[in-house]
């Protein structure tokens, strides 16, 4: 499908030289015979693999969909009931939580209070940071 560079007739001499120079410098190294063989081998290996995948895909697709649906329905069955306004603090959320962290995270949710100073319940190192950044 290659034809003579008909478009170059529209370029002036300087443009044509400029384009030729770009084309000459912007090209990959030719393939070495070893690299060509490796490339061909990789291509044939992929072609050999492809049919098995295409045969397996239709067979595995319904299985995958069924597994996805099963996971979704299973997680739906064991999900905790939806939040209905009242405070809900689950035990797993508390496990591994320091008392001051629990106080900080959940006290406002439980009491419904808006803004208040957390300085009193934070550990000392947090207070040092707070003094630097919040000018306390």
């Amino acid at each position: 499908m290659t034809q003579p560079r008909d478009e170059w007739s529209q370029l002036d001499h300087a443009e044509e030289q400029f384009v030729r120079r770009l084309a000459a410098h912007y090209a990959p190294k030719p393939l070495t015979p070893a690299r060509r063989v490796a490339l061909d081998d990789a291509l044939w290996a992929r072609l050999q693999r492809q049919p098995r995948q295409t045969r397996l895909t239709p067979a595995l697709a319904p299985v995958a969909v069924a597994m996805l649906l099963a996971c979704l329905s299973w997680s739906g069955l064991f999900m905790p009931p939806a939040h209905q306004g009242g405070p809900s603090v689950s035990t797993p959320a508390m496990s591994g939580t320091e008392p001051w962290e629990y106080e900080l995270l959940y006290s406002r949710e439980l009491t419904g209070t808006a803004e208040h100073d957390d300085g009193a319940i934070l550990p000392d190192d947090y207070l040092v940071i707070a003094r630097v950044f919040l000018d306390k």
Partner: protein
Amino acid sequence: MMEEALVQEPPAVALELEQRFHLFVASHRERARRLAWRLVGGDDAAAEDVIQEAFIKAYRALGQFREEASLATWFYRIVVRQAHNYCRWRTVRETWSALWQGGLPHAAAQESGDPLLRRRIAKALAQLSHSQKEAFVLVHMEGFSVREASALMGKPEGTVKSHLHRALQGLRSALADLAEDMGGNTP
């Protein structure tokens, strides 16, 4: 699927198709690799991935094309599209990589000739739009005609000409020293 068709075909026909494919790969490998390399910005591994995908698609479609010329047109169209997709995904990957890791992965290009000039050309080409870059590489670097490039890019000939004009303007301004150098040499 073509591979299955090859298996089901009588052995002589399957063999003929395989031979056709071997010939097709042998006659288009270098040009396809060079085209893909130029379109993906000088990345050897990416260019090889792009042409492998395109050859696999050509293998599947081999039976549908009686003439080698029409298969070649179709094949190069796939190469252009695969390279375009690769560049699009690379942009996404680089954006995320820059956001999360603070660095950009760079292409592993083989260094030969004048690496600095090559990198400058790659950078200048990367600043063009995808269509301008494709038009320029296809017509001015790979020697396709405007009609062929328009078929490969799926765009009207007038649009391809306009892209070519803008691409040349962009490259001449980005690589002004090279263009002036050339202009100075002309009588």
